[in-house]
C-alpha cells in the first residue's frame, strides 16, 4: 500500500507522516506527479496562508493534477479549504473540487483562531462512528453544504469534514487528534 503526502511547502508534513507511521504505514512525502498518481492514497495537508499555498500548487502544477485523481484523497486543514471553490483568505480561488463551496472567515467578535478540541456532530461516511473531540486550529471555515460529512459548533455550525466521491477532507487535524485521529485515518485507509 502506497500513501503519498503532497509536499508543496505548506508545513506540517512531518507530523502527518508520523501519524501514518504510527499506524504501521509507510508514507512518502513528494511533489512528483508520477509518484502521486501511482499512490493508493493521497494526503493533501496544509498549514499557512491560502494565497501562498495556492501559488505553490500552481507553480508545481499540482493544481491541475489533484482534481483528476481517482484514488482516495484526504485534504487536511488548509488542504481542505483549498479543495473548495474559493476562500476569503487572500481572496483566493481554490481547486473547486467541492464545487461552489466558499470558505469564509469567523466573525472576529469571537475568539479567532478556533483553537483546541471540539466534538464532531452529525457524522456520516468514514466518520460515522466518530463523535468525539478532535483538534482544530483555523480562522476560516466552510459552511454546511451537501458535501458535509461531519459538523462542529463554534459560533455557528460549520463543516468539520467534507466528501465528494473519492475526495475526503477534514478541517481538523486527524494527525493531532489522539486515538480518535488514528481511528479516522484508519477508516480512510479502508476506502479502496
Amino acid at each position, binding site marked *: 500500500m502506497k500513501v503519498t503526502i503532497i509536499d508543496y511547502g505548506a508545513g506540517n508534513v*512531518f*507530523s502527518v507522516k508520523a501519524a501514518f507511521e504510527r499506524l504501521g504505514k509507510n508514507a512518502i512525502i513528494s511533489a512528483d506527479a508520477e509518484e502521486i498518481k501511482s499512490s493508493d492514497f493521497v494526503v493533501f495537508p496544509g498549514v499557512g496562508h491560502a494565497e501562498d499555498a495556492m501559488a505553490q500548487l500552481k507553480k508545481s502544477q499540482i493544481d491541475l493534477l489533484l482534481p483528476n485523481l481517482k484514488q482516495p484523497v484526504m485534504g487536511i486543514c488548509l488542504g481542505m479549504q483549498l479543495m473548495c471553490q474559493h476562500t476569503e483568505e487572500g481572496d483566493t480561488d481554490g481547486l473547486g473540487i467541492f464545487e461552489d463551496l466558499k470558505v469564509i472567515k469567523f466573525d472576529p467578535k469571537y475568539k479567532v483562531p*478556533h*483553537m*483546541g478540541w471540539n466534538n464532531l456532530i452529525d457524522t456520516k461516511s468514514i466518520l460515522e462512528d466518530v463523535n468525539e473531540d478532535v483538534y482544530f486550529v483555523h480562522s476560516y471555515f466552510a459552511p454546511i453544504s451537501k458535501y458535509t460529512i461531519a459538523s462542529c459548533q463554534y459560533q455557528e455550525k460549520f463543516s468539520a469534514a467534507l466528501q465528494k466521491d473519492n475526495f475526503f477532507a477534514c478541517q481538523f487535524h486527524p494527525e493531532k*487528534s*489522539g486515538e480518535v485521529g488514528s481511528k479516522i485515518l484508519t477508516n480512510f485507509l479502508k476506502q479502496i
Partner: protein
Amino acid sequence: MLKKRIIPCLDIKNGRTVKGINFEGLVDAGDPVELAKVYSQNGADELVFLDITATHEGRKTMLEMVKNVALSINIPFTVGGGISSVEDAALLLKNGADKISVNSSAVKNPNLIKELAQKFGNQCVVIAIDAKLINDKWKVFLNGGRIETDLELFAWAKEAVNLGAGEILFTSMDHDGTKNGFAIEALKKMSEIVNVPIIASGGCGNMQHFKDVFLESKVDASLAASVFHFGEIKIPELKTYLKTNKIEIR
C-alpha cells in the same frame, strides 16, 4: 463545544527535562520524549516545551528532541525558548512542532511576530509574556524574569495580537511557584482586551485552582509544570473533577 485545555509544561536543557521530576512508572524521568508520551496517554490536551539551553550544541539537541516528540505523540505541542528569527522557527516547525512561542525576542524585535505570522500563519505564533505587578501596574519582564522592561502587560498583549500572535501564554511571576492559584483578575482583564485564545500560567497548586480559573475568567487553557511532574495532580482525576464541575473538558 470547544473544550478547555490542560497543558503540562516541560523545561528542557540540552535535550533533558530539568526540575526534579518524580513521575510514577517512568524509567527515565529526564527523557522528555518518554514524559511526553505519558502525558499524552493520560489525557493532556497539548504540551509546551521550553528550551532553556543557551548553547549552540544544545539547540541542535533540541531539534532532535522535537523530532522524536513529533514521532511519538499525537497531540499538538508548542516549542519556545531562544527563537529569534523566522529561520529558527522554520527549523522547529519542519521537525514537527505545531506552534512556536516567542517571548524576549519579540519584545526586542516586535516585527518578528509579524514575520512569523505572515510566514506560518497566526495560529502558529504564541506570544509568551512574563509579568509582575509593580506599584499597581503589570510590568513585562524578559529573559526568564530577570530583566524588567517599561512595557505594560495589557498594552503589550494587545500589540502582539495586532502584530499577528494567535495565542497568549501569560505567566504571572507573582503567582508562579506559590501554588496559591492563578492570577485570575489579570486573566479576566486580558480576556476583555484581546480576542485570541489565552493560556493561564503560574500559581496552580491544586485541582480547585483549575476550576476557579476556568469558571471565573474566560481563559481557554491552563498550564502547569511541577504539580504534574510530581504527580500531585493526575490529569485523568483533574479532568473528571472539572467535568463534574460543569466545565467543558475533553
